[in-house]
């Protein structure tokens, strides 16, 4: 699909191919979240290049960044960040609203993604009526709804127990199997090994970048 090359933090250089499932690992303070924020255009690098799907990402103003985020990126956060007064379906439909897709189509598409994460029956429920795992699945559906080039997951299992974590990872793996590029930031070893490639960060530099044999989360579920 495209290539990502960047120089961030204290000299980081890597390219993620289309369809990869990359884990960025490191202890807290290693710069992994900062890296993800730069990748997500939520933060700006002081110097270096970042190309996403052949588009150089630089000199972004807020409006342009918003447009790119909407078009290229899907976010999954540790704390889910669902809008608590909107139902699961409305949350999933929200990125489509910013793509100016009509309401009816929005809801149809959102429903499709909710179905994909197995929460069709929960569509009308508010986030506080859902379990942690369900919330994260809604968040993943929301991230997927805009059909982004890259899915960025910042500690997606950080707030979940291990069983639920594996369910979420299983979902991410399935999404990856469909050909979507996913970057997962984590500090958990078992989660990292469910990806296809692990980049180890320490103090702002890449200490190790290796392809691993993927552990299927479904084995644990």
């Amino acid at each position, binding site marked *: 699909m495209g290539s990502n090359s960047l120089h961030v933090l204290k000299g980081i250089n890597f390219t993620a191919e289309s369809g990869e499932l990359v884990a960025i690992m490191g202890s807290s303070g290693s710069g992994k979240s900062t890296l993800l*924020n730069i990748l*997500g255009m*939520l*933060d700006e690098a002081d110097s270096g290049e970042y190309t996403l799907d052949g588009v150089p990402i630089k000199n972004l103003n*807020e*409006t342009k960044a*918003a*447009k790119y*985020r*909407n*078009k290229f990126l899907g*976010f999954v*956060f540790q*704390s889910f*960040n*669902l*809008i608590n*007064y*909107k139902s699961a379906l*409305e949350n999933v439909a*929200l*990125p489509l*609203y*910013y*793509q*100016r897709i*009509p*309401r009816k189509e929005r809801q149809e598409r959102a429903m499709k993604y909710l179905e994909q994460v197995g929460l069709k029956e929960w569509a009308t429920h508010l986030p506080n009526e859902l379990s942690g795992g369900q919330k994260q699945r809604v968040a993943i559906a*929301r991230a997927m709804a*805009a059909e982004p080039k890259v899915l960025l997951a910042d500690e997606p299992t950080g707030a979940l127990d291990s069983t639920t974590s594996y369910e979420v990872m299983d979902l991410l793996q399935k999404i990856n199997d469909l050909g979507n590029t996913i970057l997962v930031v984590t500090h958990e070893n078992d989660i990292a090994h469910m990806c296809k490639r692990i980049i180890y960060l320490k103090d702002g530099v890449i200490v190790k970048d290796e392809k691993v044999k993927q552990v299927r989360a479904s084995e644990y579920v």
Partner: protein
Amino acid sequence: MFDIERWQEIFDTIRKNKLRTFLTGLSVASGIFILVILLGFGQGMQNGIAQEFEEDASNRIIVWTQVTTKEHKGLNPGRPIQIRNENYDFIESKFSEVLKDKSANLFVSNAQVNYKKESVGYSVQGVHDGFQFVENQYMSQGRYINYHDHKNVSKVAVISNVIKREIFKNSEDPLNEYLDISGIKFKIIGVYGDMGGEREEERIFIPMSTAQRVFNGSDKINNLYYTLQPVENFDQAVAESMRFSNDMKRYLQDAHTVAPDDLSAINVFNTLEEVKRFFTLMNGIKLFFWFVGICTIIAGVVGVSNIMLIVVKERTREIGVRKALGAKPWSIVGMILHESIFVTAISGFVGLIFSMGLLELLGPYIEVDYIVNPSVNFNVAISTVFVLIFAGAAAGFFPAWRAANIHVIDALRDE
């Protein structure tokens, strides 16, 4: 503004944040409500005061006399001053250009009024034909005393509605009946009413000449009454009437050898002067109402701004999420302002409709002294609604703008 998607989004937000919406709306609606009611009562007071003055002819000038208090040209203080016919005639000819209605009056002292052996206790006054207009009296029946009655020293009398009701019990026709005033028969020629109310209807009027001659008054006069020709504007009217009062007073002081600085001997009461004072007072009151009203609006604006600040604070995280999902800064600002303007506008109009409805419904029934038919100028009211909407939007803009431009990361970390 006409983006249906955005409207749906806003209605969703409003529907799901009822308390917040309600509080914003309440502060706006109550602000408008209080302002409209205040302005309404300001107007009501103006109407009330205006009406009080309409009841009496508002440019009336009255002269009465007491004893002198100052020594003047060798004359001792304590000398009673008596106005006489010659004074009345002189003023009438000298100021004929500015005068409209004029009359003197003379109280018939110790008048015994009887009708068919029934004694009644009303005062009797001799007046000229102009007295009817000076006192704002209207005729219910018959006619008023006229020039011929005065000239012929006719023994005729005009009674009031109240007297008619009390003596004739409404069953008999009082016209051409005879009243006995201190043993002399007077033919009733008319029944008057007084705009000033029934307390002004306790008097029986007879021609001035009759009062003077028949009741031994020689050429004495108790009071002088004048109204002036109307002029273009109020200030001019005040100036004209002040000049007349002063000139007339000086003439009377001269004629009766009274010191010009004697504050007691000759007194001139000029209603227009009083009216002017009342108008000044009323303007003060209106200004005060406006001041209170504007303070209320400011309080409303501060309330709205406060709520907007809290709303933005409370929604920081949501704003972060929306930005992460691709919301542009302007769409965030637009969303927040759109919502706040919508809520402010709706509640502003609710407050407006409610308060104006209240004034419309209850206003005409409010019959307190000095408050009559409180009402409010619709344009003023609607302008204040727009001011409040605008102020609310301006107050909401800055926090919204700041929120829309904070980093998504900071917004998402906001707990």
